[in-house]
């Protein structure tokens, strides 16, 4: 529940002089018009519609991969465009995706030890 107010470093640039680190907090994004975000949301909505359609339409063998790929696309779109990971300092992406990828690897291995992925 941190707020900026708690950030010692904030507003302290004079003291630190030229910063070695590029990971700098108050960052300015290039400004995107609202219509841009609406477009992104429309695409996301379309993907969701496609996903839910699998409930009625039979996709056969493509079913699982399609769903997973669509899920990944949505995830990355929200993360990069709404959460501004794209265009922001790389360090944020590193921190977040480290957690994500670590989670995926560790928990996949974990499920694998239960023979979750092997056909029964």
């Amino acid at each position: 529940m941190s707020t900026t107010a708690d950030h010692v470093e904030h507003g302290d640039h004079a003291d630190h002089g030229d910063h070695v680190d590029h990971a700098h907090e108050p960052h300015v994004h290039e400004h995107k018009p609202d219509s841009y975000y609406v477009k992104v949301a429309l695409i996301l909505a379309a993907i969701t519609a496609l996903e839910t359609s699998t409930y009625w339409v039979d996709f056969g063998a493509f079913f699982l991969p399609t769903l997973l790929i669509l899920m990944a696309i949505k995830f990355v779109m929200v993360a990069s465009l709404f959460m501004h990971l794209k265009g922001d300092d790389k360090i944020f992406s590193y921190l977040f995706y480290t957690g994500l990828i670590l989670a995926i690897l560790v928990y996949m291995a974990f499920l694998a030890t239960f023979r979750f992925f092997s056909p029964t």
Partner: protein
Amino acid sequence: MAMWLFLGSECLLFGGLISTYMLYRGRHPADLGPDQIFDIPFTSVSSFVLLMSSLTMVLAVSAAAQKDDRRTNLWLTVTALLGATFVGGQVYEFTSFYREGLGFTSSLFSSSFYTLTGFHGVHVTVGIIMLMALVGINKRSSVPGDKAEVVELVGLYWHFVDVVWIIIFTLVYLIPS
């Protein structure tokens, strides 16, 4: 940066809950499993609502960046309302499952399902509280846009909660067991 680290950490939290659910989703009496109980059309609608709340959130962030407090507050409120709709939908869903006989302790499937989605619901609720608090703080403050950075941080949290739902919706609801 702190928020990103926290979200990275949350990935492992939800990862653990999702894995537990995946492990146990098949362990239930024949008539009370995911395939029997889920109401996909209903959940699709509430997923859609949550997705759209991400849009309103990003609009709030961008309004805050332009120091437009009035629009910021408007979008924050809309986001909170959409979030509340989602949570309301979840409450409704839980009660109807419960009526059909799926209690928290009925089966391993039900325990892990309620734990996972309940955790997510709590996250959304916390998000709603933060949004409301932000609106309150914004109203008191006389300097427009001075809370822009906080709005952005809450925004990150909110999008993350949405993103987690994207995963849960696919893995838990859409993929039959």
